């Protein structure tokens, strides 16, 4: 690329950050992109959210690698924007700043007893089994036979499936070693998935629900007496996906359990009971309005809340508390109902945690269209500010944590995994990632 006319900083190297970079670089407007990431490793939720037993989804990283190879792209890892450097400093150095910071905080459901110890956020468990450095030191109590997951979406299915798979079903995945070890000792055999609405309103995808039909040691089940009589009726819609999900749930309701483990779907969580630690989760049966209520108590000391996520607020950026995202209008950040010029957002930190990986592509394209419209009207950054910023970051870690450093970390992880027949064995601490980049960097 010849000297770029414009420079844009993107904060967060997950899918929407990469897709925003791609759209900016493809626009042929002389834009160079620096993609900032808090960790030394890229890919966001593709690395730390997608379940380890879904390797095909992770192949999307090949697309991100192609984007990283585009002229004008630079990866700046190991920088926590808002802590290590301020948004104000970024704004001085770039024409535009795009926040693609995702939704890292779990939401609460607002039920009595929710704060009891033993009630955990599903996102913490997901981060833990995927080897996220922030979650690696968490501990979960798998000594009871029963666990409860609150929520009827695909993350809830991931949590239940990882809890119910046998060690042999997980051993050849890129699950973190500490998680494999702890889950191999787990005594959990029954997982109860409790959602608020009926079978026709779950957010499961049929394919992921169907996976429960294929587990080695687990039968999925639905107790028909939990549900209103017409719970599985399709209605008039043509939605094939929903129809397939309903058919699967109906099939589960007729299934005779023969295997050692079970996954049961229920409705309408009511409360959690216990002293300091949760002892039981209560749900309502046969949820027909006006009908006599019957409540069921499931004794458990392990509950996962999977009822949505929200964006972590950043110092200096207005926050939309009701939507749980950076305050924005169509991707342009807002402050006191006015556009905050030069600041943008895309992905989950723009629209909340919905859709699949590719939804973020459309979302990022939409934000980038706005940036391209605005570019000429944005003030030019201070000359030399970017170079000072990026070199000061490199000095902090003793090695520039750029995309070449990631490639070194990546190869080392793959080599570590190979020994155990895994696609990779992730480094689960930032220090180990940095040390790997530094050692190999010198050796090269």
């Amino acid at each position, binding site marked *: 690329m010849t000297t770029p006319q414009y420079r844009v900083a993107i904060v967060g190297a997950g*899918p929407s950050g990469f897709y925003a970079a791609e759209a900016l670089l493809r626009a042929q407007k002389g834009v160079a992109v620096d993609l900032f990431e808090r960790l030394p490793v890229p890919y966001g939720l593709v690395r730390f959210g997608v379940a380890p037993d879904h390797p*095909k*989804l*992770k*192949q*999307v990283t*090949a*697309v991100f690698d192609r984007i990283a190879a585009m002229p004008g792209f630079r990866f700046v890892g190991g920088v926590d924007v808002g802590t290590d450097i301020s948004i104000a400093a970024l704004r001085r150095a770039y024409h535009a700043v795009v926040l693609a910071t995702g939704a890292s905080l779990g939401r609460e459901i607002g039920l009595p007893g929710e704060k009891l110890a033993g009630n955990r956020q599903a996102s913490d468990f997901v981060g833990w089994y995927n080897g996220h450095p922030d979650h690696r030191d968490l501990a979960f109590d798998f000594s009871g036979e029963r666990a409860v997951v609150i929520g009827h979406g695909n993350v809830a299915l991931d949590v239940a499936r990882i809890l119910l798979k046998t060690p042999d079903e997980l051993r050849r995945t890129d699950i973190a070693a500490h998680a494999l070890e702890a889950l191999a000792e787990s005594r959990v055999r029954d997982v109860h998935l409790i959602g608020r609405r009926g079978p026709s309103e779950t957010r499961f*995808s*049929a*394919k992921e629900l*169907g996976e429960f039909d294929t587990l080695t040691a687990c039968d999925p089940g639905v107790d028909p007496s939990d549900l209103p009589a017409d719970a599985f009726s399709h209605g008039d819609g*043509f*939605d*094939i*996906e929903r129809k*397939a999900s309903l058919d699967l749930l109906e099939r589960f309701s007729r299934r005779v359990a023969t295997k050692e483990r079970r996954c049961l779907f229920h409705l309408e969580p009511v409360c959690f009971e216990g002293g300091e630690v949760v002892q039981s989760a209560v749900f309502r049966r046969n949820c027909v309005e006006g009908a006599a209520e019957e409540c069921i108590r499931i004794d458990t000391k392990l509950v996962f809340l999977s009822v949505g996520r929200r964006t972590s607020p950043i110092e200096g950026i207005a926050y939309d508390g009701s939507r749980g995202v950076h305050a924005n209008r169509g991707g342009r950040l807002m402050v006191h109902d006015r556009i905050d010029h030069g600041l943008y957002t895309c992905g989950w930190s723009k629209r909340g945690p919905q*859709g*699949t*990986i*590719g*939804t*973020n*592509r*459309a979302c990022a*394209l939409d934000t980038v269209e706005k940036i391209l419209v605005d570019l000429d009207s944005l003030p030019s950054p201070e000359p030399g500010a970017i170079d000072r910023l990026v070199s000061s970051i490199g000095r902090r870690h003793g090695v520039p944590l750029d995309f070449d450093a990631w490639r070194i970390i990546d190869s080392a992880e793959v080599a570590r995994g190979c020994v155990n027949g895994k696609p990779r064995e992730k480094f689960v601490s930032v220090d180990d990632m940095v040390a790997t980049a530094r050692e190999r960097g010198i050796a090269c």
Partner: protein
Amino acid sequence: MTYVVTDQCTGCRYTECVTVCPVECFHLDDEMTYIDPENCIDCGGCVPACPVGAIQASCLLAPEQQKWIEINRRRAAETPVITSRLAPLPGADERKKALGL
């Protein structure tokens, strides 16, 4: 397992699928779009994006629709990749309305 475009796309070709595909695995000809099964990562994002419900998981296809698995594979190899949305075919909105969608 992969996802496939069925003949429900023919006559509309909205190409909404293309905007949400994370791996640019859609191809097209004058009639409809096709999914390259070699590149599709099974995310399923295109299924709800299609305004006429033309895309399905191959494992959920009715027996008479199974042929679309092979057609998608063959036509994806013969046709160019499409990376951004195009205008729908003339008459697409009328067809969609006639389908009651």
